């Protein structure tokens, strides 16, 4: 494997999100919090969501982890903010497919920066890093629905 391959993993946009995370911190006012660990490696992510009338009004994250898990969290919060919850879940599904090496269908929702993580699919050991924040988001939305 050459650096070209590494570059498919560590795309510039990923490193930018890692270095300058968007939506890092916590939400003031009403929100739900989901903590999730990756017990095999020690990564920890906290996602905070503010959902009103089925819309994700605010999304923030915090935690510690590698460039892939933190940049993915940053991109995820950016992508779902202002979107209907159903769209957020749809994105999560598409993202999960992306990690399994699937291509994005044309009619699918625009993922923006998130597409940069497509290269992670070639590094099976790192897929869990990329999906951690999405899993936390899904868990939060599920809990919200049950309330």
């Amino acid at each position, binding site marked *: 494997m050459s650096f070209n391959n590494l570059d498919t993993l*560590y795309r510039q946009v990923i490193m930018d999100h890692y270095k300058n995370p968007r939506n890092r911190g916590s939400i003031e006012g009403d929100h739900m919090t989901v903590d999730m660990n990756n017990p095999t490696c*020690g*990564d920890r992510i906290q996602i905070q969501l503010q959902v009103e009338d089925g819309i994700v009004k605010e999304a923030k994250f915090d935690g510690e982890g590698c460039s892939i898990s933190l940049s993915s969290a940053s991109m995820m919060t950016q992508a779902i903010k202002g979107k209907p919850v159903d769209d957020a879940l749809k994105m999560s599904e598409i993202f999960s497919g992306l990690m399994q090496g699937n291509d994005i269908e044309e009619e699918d929702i625009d993922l923006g920066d998130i597409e940069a993580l497509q290269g992670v699919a070639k590094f099976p050991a790192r897929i869990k890093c990329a999906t951690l924040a999405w899993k936390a988001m899904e868990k939060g939305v599920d809990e919200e629905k049950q309330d």
Partner: protein
Amino acid sequence: MDVKAVRDEFPILHQEVNGHPLVYLDSSATSQKPRKVIEKIDEYYRGYNSNVHRGVHTLGTRATDEYEGAREKVRRFINASSTQEVIFTRGTTTAINTVASSYGRANFQAGDEIVITPMEHHSNIIPWQQIAKETGATLKYMPLQPDGTIRLEDAKETITANTKMVAIMQVSNVLGTINPVKEIARMAHDQEAVILVDGAQSAPHMKIDVQDMDADFFAFSAHKMCGPTGIGVLYGKKALLNDMEPVEFGGEMIDFVNLYDSTWKELPWKFEGGTPIIAGAVGLGAAIDFLNEIGLDQIQDHEHKLAQYALERMNTIEGMKIYGPQERAGLVTFNLSDVHPHDLATVLDAEGIAVRAGHHCAQPLMRWLEVSATARASFYLYNTEEEIDRLVEGLQTTKEYFGDVF
């Protein structure tokens, strides 16, 4: 020690990974297997696979002889006084759990103390947490020095008249610290406590003498010492094991089964319920032969040199943070600037270099070190200084690769 000749015995080492010759620096997680071990297991399955201790037929007799022969090899390997003191288990984890469940349940009560250290592997923490909750005993930690060593005076202070069990690793899988287990055993015995020594990271790398160490229990795994996965050993002093109840009940371990009650076989078989790990034991026996042929002292000396060389070379890299004492076993745990260990391990992997990244099953120790994760390069008899040079080059590359980010 002729490292080139040693390497020739390990088929797996002669391959390219991601376009580079493999540099395997993860032997603390699991070691590679020499041809003789692989062939011995193959020979068992091809030539005399049979259940042990029950057949009258020829294959069964041979399988039993090989299985019990492996036990004798283990006895000599750790200098136990009798094969009755050598119990085959699934690994170190099962061995420690057996002691915690059986010895702990019978001997601990509220007010008693179990003394461990913050550097323990999860498998030498959680069994004690669980039995402490069940019996009302208290879990107590020996303090560590800033370099990750234990001072004897601290050990002495922590072990009191209330202590019933001291459980400690002989070698740390993260810090490389070699703990003074013989001295700590004496302290435990002075307080009429027993001591369990977790030998998972020591038995593969140095001569073990359980009698000289005066360990009451000693546990280790075959797969970290050139043997197969799925088998390990629990050594226990005969007097203690005799008084302990088995934790697994079923075939192989019984003497006489009545409708409502049963009696157990004698040691060691009363702790080996079910068809034992025959191929595993045979493979472990071959691994012991292999290590003995080379010599544990030679292996320890070789790894010591590698560790000292690695420390010297790695310390020249700017931003390198190494954990643990200078005088150590054959491993180096570290972090490089702000590069997360996972990212670092991915870049090294692209260069064909296998290291471990994460918490190394030692979360309390990670918190003590105030890090969430670390990277670790660990060495064994087949590693070379050239491979450490490759690691150092790989780390330089990693720094360059992430250089514009941090």
